[in-house]
């Protein structure tokens, strides 16, 4: 009789311990809050869709594997409406209303530049996925990390290939805002350094439907055109250019082919080259890590979402994925517990090196301490018979340039 009581008592006590023990564990597992500025509507609506899916997939993987330092990651997503003023307001909302400690993304350079000072004011590390060089330059600050390729890297990397393989005399056609001007300036600088020449620079307002009047100004002496546009502008550009100069060679900046099906572009796009930090098709980077990454985010070998057939903007999706994992590594390395520890996370990110892996499928690289820019390699793709093929890989050494700022000296 007594034995039974003691036995039951012990079972009861053990049960109590388990329940209470579990509770205290749960209480310690306060989530790490991450905010996302997704461009879900407006001119960049195509980007927000895939960026959000990729980040969610990354966080799902992290949480499945036990979270970061045992804590689950919770994601809050807000729509920037592709407008800098809305983006800045939503940044504040993410931090002030939801209490996020880190913010990832917007694909728009304008939004990134508008949010940079807000990130510093609210002492929140910010990881935009936009290409303007100024983000890791004069318009950035110690809280901002540009973990994607920037325009200067892209132009520097491609210049030699362009002069040797595409043409020597160039015209540039860019959309009229920061990302466009950045491309225009950097391309001219590096093409000239490599023995080429820019004979005409043309700027076109965003959203122009008829590009014929602008493109008519491309001089006959130009053998090739370097262009920076995307979306509806790209479609108008490629169609109107073909009408005027079907012979001219074309090199596009990063993004130009975002969301487009090369087959549907027809002869107007045949032979077109474009800079790509990440190959659209699996064939261009057929590593086990890339295969696994693409499986987790749900795209097939052609870059289409499995199930819906929607085109992902793979050109910068990887930057969103890698930003999350870089952040995870930094939190683990620095032992970040709450906002007071944010300077530690920033210091951990400065100079961080990473190897090609499932977390960093784009390739090995490092985060430069002085300007918070990711130093990685990139690719050049070409549309051959309606199919995008990688034609060359440009290693990180050819892409790197001296930093223009030193954030490590900046106070928090």
């Amino acid at each position: 009789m007594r034995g039974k009581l003691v036995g039951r008592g012990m079972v009861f006590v053990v049960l109590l311990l388990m329940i209470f023990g579990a509770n205290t564990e749960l209480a310690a597992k306060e989530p790490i809050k991450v905010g996302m500025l997704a461009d879900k509507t407006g001119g960049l609506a195509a980007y927000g869709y895939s960026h959000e899916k990729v980040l969610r997939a990354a966080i799902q993987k992290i949480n499945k594997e036990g979270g970061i330092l045992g804590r689950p990651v919770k994601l809050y997503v807000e729509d920037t409406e592709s407008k800098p003023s809305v983006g800045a307001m939503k940044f504040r909302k993410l931090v002030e209303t939801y209490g996020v400690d880190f913010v990832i993304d917007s694909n728009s350079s304008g939004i990134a530049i508008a949010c940079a000072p807000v990130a510093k004011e609210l002492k929140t590390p910010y990881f935009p996925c936009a290409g303007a060089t100024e983000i890791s330059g004069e318009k950035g600050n110690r809280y901002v990390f540009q973990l994607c390729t920037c325009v200067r890297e892209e132009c520097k990397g491609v210049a030699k290939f362009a002069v040797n393989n595409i043409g020597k005399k160039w015209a540039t056609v860019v959309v009229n805002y920061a990302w466009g001007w950045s491309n225009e300036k950097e391309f001219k600088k590096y093409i000239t350094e490599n023995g080429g020449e820019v004979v005409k620079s043309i700027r076109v307002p965003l959203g122009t439907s008829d590009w014929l009047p602008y493109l008519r100004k491309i001089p006959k002496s130009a053998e090739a055109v370097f262009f920076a546009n995307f979306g509806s502008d790209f479609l108008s550009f490629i169609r109107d250019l073909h009408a005027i100069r079907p012979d001219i060679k074309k090199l596009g900046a990063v993004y130009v082919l975002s969301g487009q099906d090369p087959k549907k572009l027809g002869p107007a796009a045949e032979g077109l080259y474009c800079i790509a930090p990440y190959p659209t098709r699996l064939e261009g980077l057929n590593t086990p890590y890339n295969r696994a990454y693409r499986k987790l985010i749900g795209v097939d070998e052609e870059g289409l979402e499995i199930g819906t057939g929607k085109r992902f903007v793979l050109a910068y999706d990887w930057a969103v994925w890698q930003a999350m994992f870089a952040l995870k590594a930094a939190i683990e390395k620095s032992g970040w517990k709450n906002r007071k520890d944010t300077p530690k996370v920033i210091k951990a990110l400065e100079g961080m090196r990473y190897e090609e892996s499932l977390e960093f499928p784009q390739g090995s690289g490092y985060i430069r301490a002085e300007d918070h820019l990711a130093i990685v390699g990139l690719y050049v793709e070409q549309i051959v018979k309606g199919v995008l093929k990688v034609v060359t890989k440009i290693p990180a050494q050819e892409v790197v340039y001296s930093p223009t700022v030193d954030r490590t000296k900046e106070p928090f």
Partner: protein
Amino acid sequence: MKRGFPFLLVISLLVLGLILPRGARSLMVQMMAFSIFAMAYDISLGFTNQCSLGHSVFFGAGAYGTILPMLHWHFGVLPSVFIGFLLGLVLAFLTGLISVRLSEAYFVIVTAIFSAIFHLLAMDMTWLTGGDDGLSVTLPKIGFGPLKLSLYHPLGTYYFVLAFLLAGYLALRTIVGSPLGMIFVAIRENEKRTAFLGYNVRTYKLIAFLISGTFTALSGGLYAVSLRYATADFFSLYWSIIPIVWCLVGGLGTLIGPCIGVALMSLFQYYVSAWWTYYLVIFGVLILLILRVSRRGILGYFIGRGARGGWRL
């Protein structure tokens, strides 16, 4: 109770600044800045029937007039806001001279053209405006003798903007209640008869337009200060159309009505956009429903219902 209402509102705004959580407080700051814009626009549309589509010119000018001196010449916040205010006055005068003499639809289009011209120029002159990407600025502290107020303090921007909102409201309410205001209403009700009574209608319409444009610029300056940022997008047609939405949804010609419109739209954008990306569909339907029930907007509905006297706000 009706007399005491505005007093109650002021006290609530003062207290809310202290008790609201940070996110809601930032939203309030935006709503307060926009309320000045909405009330200013009401002077033009609600009180003198001038449906301008050009107010984005003043809004953007106020924003840049405030940001540029701080950025390039290290002016203080208050002087910069004042410069934005003055810039609005000058531009309202120049555009008003040209537009006010035109009748209804022509007035609308010419003001819209001004908005388009300024937007094009602002997007093009990126060396000055930073184009669509805009310009960010670090706000200096505001000094009152030995006291230094930093707008980066969580409560700083809120009370800064609130002060201007109260001052602006008092100014506009006084104007509207004065003989000048009566003439505005007379012009709205029957322009011909007012002219017949010997008033130079064009001059009074210009004055109303001036007041409207100037306070719109003030709103633009305050909004830029709250964001620490200005962009060429502030000159776009969107910012000309949105005050009309505020006024018509909230209630024209009441000064407070447009503020209700601001609150509704801002709350909608802030909260509903998080549940449903396509929140504007709901807002579009809401606009249609509100206008269907009351062409005079929400407040107009209650005033109409509220029998004699209505609310003297």
